[in-house]
């Protein structure tokens, strides 16, 4: 009896506030836009019994998805989200790997402090971390002031409100997610393997590519997914740092819902975004499982 309550409480909570809402999104994505409250048809009328259900089902169709497929705004938004997420994941890896490597090679008594320094930004507000770049990247911002005063450029660069600013924002805010898994795989690395490689005539550089990097691959893959998956649906970064030309699907969904008040289309955008995420999520799970098996 007690066991049943223990299972039932969190189970029912998640059913009511996670699964059911999601099914509502799927249902509304199949409905039609209407000038009514709520602004879509058909509505399920259970008072009419089975006939009501049948009528409701007959009213559903894939019109919104056909609309999404026909309007190239959505295609471009999906593709550009994929592109922005992929490029920024790669850049985060380029920035994060040397930091993780340096941490793993640092004297042992430094490591807890370095680790704390990587985790600290994660606890500070995401919004504030994104906002802090607005002052730096603006036309009259600190970066342009610095570059002009030391004479590298004559005219201020336009960085804020471009995709470059979005890349910087994603790299900056998601960097801890890349550093931590790479660090934990590098820290476990057996130093004698590198000594063996050097004894066998490897240069330090080729020892890195032949020994260290392959052994840290699990961390690299985990870190890349931890950046790529949330970056794909990102809303705050493109809307604060990106320009009007920055197309990201999270922003499109937001505007479709709040500005155009088109609930069925917003729901259809959400369904497709989720379908897009399923592949990377499954790959990520598989990588995690493989790692667990390798350890266990």
């Amino acid at each position, binding site marked *: 009896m007690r066991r049943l309550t223990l*299972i039932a409480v*969190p189970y029912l*909570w998640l059913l009511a506030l*996670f699964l059911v809402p999601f099914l509502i999104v799927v249902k509304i994505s199949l409905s039609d836009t209407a000038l009514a409250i709520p602004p879509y048809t058909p509505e399920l009328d259970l008072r009419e019994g089975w006939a009501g259900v049948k009528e409701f089902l007959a009213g559903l169709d894939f019109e919104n998805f056909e609309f999404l497929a026909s309007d190239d705004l959505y295609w471009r938004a999906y593709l550009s989200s994929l592109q922005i997420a992929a490029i920024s994941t790669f850049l985060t890896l380029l920035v994060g790997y040397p930091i993780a490597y*340096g941490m793993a090679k640092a004297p042992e008594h430094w490591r*807890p402090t370095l680790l704390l320094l990587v985790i600290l930004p994660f606890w500070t507000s995401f919004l504030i971390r994104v906002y802090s770049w607005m002052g730096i990247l603006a036309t009259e911002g*600190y970066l342009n002031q610095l570059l002009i005063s030391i004479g590298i450029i004559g005219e201020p660069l336009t960085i804020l409100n471009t995709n470059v600013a979005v890349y910087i924002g994603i790299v900056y805010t998601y960097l801890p997610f890349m550093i931590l898994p790479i660090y934990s795989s590098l820290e476990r690395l057996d130093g004698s393997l590198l000594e063996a490689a050097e004894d066998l005539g490897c240069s330090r550089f080729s020892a890195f590519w032949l020994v260290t990097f392959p052994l840290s691959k699990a961390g690299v893959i985990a870190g890349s997914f931890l950046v790529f998956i949330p970056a794909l649906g990102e809303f705050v970064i493109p809307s604060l740092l990106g320009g009007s030309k920055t197309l990201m699907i*999270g922003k499109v969904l937001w505007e479709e819902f709040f500005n155009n008040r088109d609930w069925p289309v917003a729901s259809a955008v959400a369904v497709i975004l989720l379908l897009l995420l399923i592949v990377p999520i499954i790959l990520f799970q598989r990588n995690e499982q493989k790692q667990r098996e390798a350890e266990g």
Partner: protein
Amino acid sequence: MRKLTWFNTTALTLGFAFLYLPMVILVVYSFNASKLVTVWGGFSTRWYGELMRNEAFLDAAWVTVKVAVMSSTLATILGTMAAYVLVRAGRFAGRTLFSGMIYAPLVMPEVITGLSLLLLFIGIGMDRGVMTIVLAHTTFAMCYVSVVVSSRLVSFDRSLEEAALDLGCTPFEAFRLVTLPIIAPAVISGWLLAFTLSLDDLVIASFTAGPSATTLPIKIFSAVRLGVSPEINALSTIMIGIVTVGVISASLISKRSMLRQSAEERAADRT
């Protein structure tokens, strides 16, 4: 003792400069007297004063803290239960669905979570306000809590619980007297994580908040959309300060309790 090579030193210096410089600049410029945010006009605490007189921000801060306390507490209770179910309850009908519903919100884009909860609240005719934000935050935060707590439960020696049961404890007493003290650090860090996630959330709160309740992130977002503002710099500095003090003292406390524990173990070994 290994020494740092020049490459590692450079990587660490540049890396941490990149992580911290933007926040340092923000803090420094929050004491700027000038209204032109990017031009230094002398030291002043003027914007902190303006912030303290800004009722809208103070109201929003109060709503945010209320929501965070309620949702993180609820999420900790539900998340710990869920972790217990995942690790201890064995097989039951619908277990796969259950663990799926625990892990899915962790990777779900916030825009989708927000949209779906809003459509639910509208569907059942619930007035949007503090309560709806609490429900929404509890739902996604409980999944984080259950991941944190279940990783501790997995490594937990089950025979301790069984011993308590053999000695006549009821299952609830065994949980309260044996299990809970052992998993307490994980439960506390789960609560802190849930609290921070709630304080920080903009997207889900924007969908589920009604006109009667505005949280601080919603307020900040609508202010900074128009550009950098000195008041927001002051507000950010306060928030960064609170987090820094909190995280550093938490890590010092856990370090001290670890030292004490190892000292006790050494003392026990000697006797």
